[in-house]
């Protein structure tokens, strides 16, 4: 059975970690062909992922910004040969794959966390408060897989790379600009350690405490919805039901009370540390180690002593 996997391309380069994690899921379904709607260098890199049997590259200006309409048309133009169409659950794929599914008149399966068989999948519902097992009766299965639950496939592959022609330009939308924060820190969804800050920080200036601790640990920085809504941190750092879902080896939650929507985004982390001055905070119910303390004392001390 053949699987078409949409590679994650970000800023003109292959997002290796997200793509390699989706490859692991794809391998469980069949023979994986990776589609790179982007530069051929990204295709060459995808060919090195272990378990990829073929790479298709559509290198055209039409796909430079990942607009949903042209990329969906491209996937649909290739879909005939494949039983599964899959992508990592990134903001980009979540924009594209439901459109692909509707064009093929099939349902989409979002945020799949486990593959039971070729038609049966597990996915979280209600912010992860329930896990649903669903069986698709559609001829083609279109799914996004949650990267935090699949290990990245290794390197060492040497798949053949073919180019494919661009599909017609639907000319429905155009790119204006990207505002992407440049950061030297590890990426949130692939980091081994994450330090996350919440409302308890109190201001954007104080959020620097989180960044200081993160830099000491070579960790990524996350934030709760409350911190993002209050303007302490940018939206792309949000961890939770509607933000990013992460599962690092170590998650340090600072000044985060632990709303269910936040817990949905981090409760699969291996070790969770909570630092909060409110001993009743729900975050302590999922934490392996809890410290009831004023973060303005504890975080500088922790940063200094590490």
């Amino acid at each position, binding site marked *: 059975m053949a699987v078409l996997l949409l590679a994650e391309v970000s800023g003109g380069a292959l997002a290796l970690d997200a793509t390699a994690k989706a490859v692991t899921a794809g391998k469980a379904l069949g023979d994986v062909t990776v589609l790179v709607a982007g530069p051929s260098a990204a295709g060459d890199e995808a060919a090195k992922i272990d378990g990829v049997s073929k790479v298709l590259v559509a290198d055209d200006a039409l796909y430079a910004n990942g607009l949903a309409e042209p990329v969906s048309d491209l996937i649909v133009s290739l879909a005939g040969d494949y039983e599964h169409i899959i992508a990592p659950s990134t903001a980009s794929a979540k924009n594209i794959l439901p459109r692909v599914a509707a064009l093929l008149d099939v349902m989409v399966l979002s945020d799949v966390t486990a593959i039971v068989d070729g038609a049966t999948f597990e996915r979280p519902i209600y912010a992860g408060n329930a896990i649903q097992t*669903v069986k698709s009766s559609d001829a083609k299965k279109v799914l996004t897989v949650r990267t935090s639950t699949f290990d990245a496939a290794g390197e060492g592959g040497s798949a053949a790379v073919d180019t494919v022609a661009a599909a017609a330009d639907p000319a429905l939308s155009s790119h204006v600009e990207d505002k992407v924060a440049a950061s030297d820190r590890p990426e949130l969804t692939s980091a081994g350690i994450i330090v996350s800050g919440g409302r308890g920080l109190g201001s954007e200036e104080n959020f620097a405490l989180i960044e200081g601790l993160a830099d000491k640990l070579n960790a990524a920085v996350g934030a709760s919805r409350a911190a993002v809504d209050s303007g302490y941190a940018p939206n792309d750092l949000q961890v939770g039901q509607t933000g990013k879902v992460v599962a690092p080896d170590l998650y340090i939650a600072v000044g985060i009370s632990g709303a269910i929507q936040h817990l949905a985004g981090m409760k699969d982390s291996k*070790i969770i540390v909570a630092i909060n001055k409110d001993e009743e905070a729900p975050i302590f119910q999922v934490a392996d180690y809890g410290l009831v303390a004023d973060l303005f004392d504890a975080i500088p*001390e922790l940063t200094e002593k590490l």
Partner: protein
Amino acid sequence: MKVLVPVKRVIDYNVKVRVKADGSGVDLANVKMSMNPFDEIAVEEAIRLKEAGKADEIVVVSVGVKQAQETLRTALAMGADRAILVVAADDVHQDIEPLAVAKILKGVIDAEDAGLVIAGKQAIDNDMNATGQMLAALTGWGQATFASEVEIDGDAAKVTREVDGGLQTISVKLPAIITADLRLNEPRYASLPNIMKAKKKPLEEKTAADYGVDTTPRLEVVKTTEPASRTAGEMVESVDALIAKLKEKGAI
């Protein structure tokens, strides 16, 4: 321009969901239900467009059980002009899949000649994040999902979207589908006089068959289970004790 806003009746976001012991689903009987929070944001955005003179009429649509009337009344009380309820289920536990909802909404769009759809980006019950994108596919319109800022400019909408690395701004030709993210706006509360007035606003009832849509699910729910639970660990007394524990575990 007529703006269509689909709204969904879902379990209130403050309610702790309970998975039924027999694995058949989540218990929704006698649970507080509300409008999906993302849909509230979509309704608010439509009202703001109307207040700014960019929209003439706001039609809210819900697909589901009869009780979704209450959800539509809430949207009318916020400021929508009229409502369409497409009754497609008689059991509150029966969720209509995004593909079927999108097909029904396509029928409503054709009948209403809407120029813009603003939807919530996802419903907090099935967390599928799909209806807006699917509707865009079926209508052949452009889409601007996960919007945090919307500006109508002639025959296009300039939309800033929340994406993985930060923000992306695109321009999408109208008619189009926009889906609302959390930070698009802060929805208003309906005032008491407006709640009273909303009772008199038109609410039309339809069925899925009126739009020729088969709502038979494509996905069979095999079972619904509780997630693996985490238990609380231990409390430590000091930063030093915390560091010692993490070192012991090899975490740092």
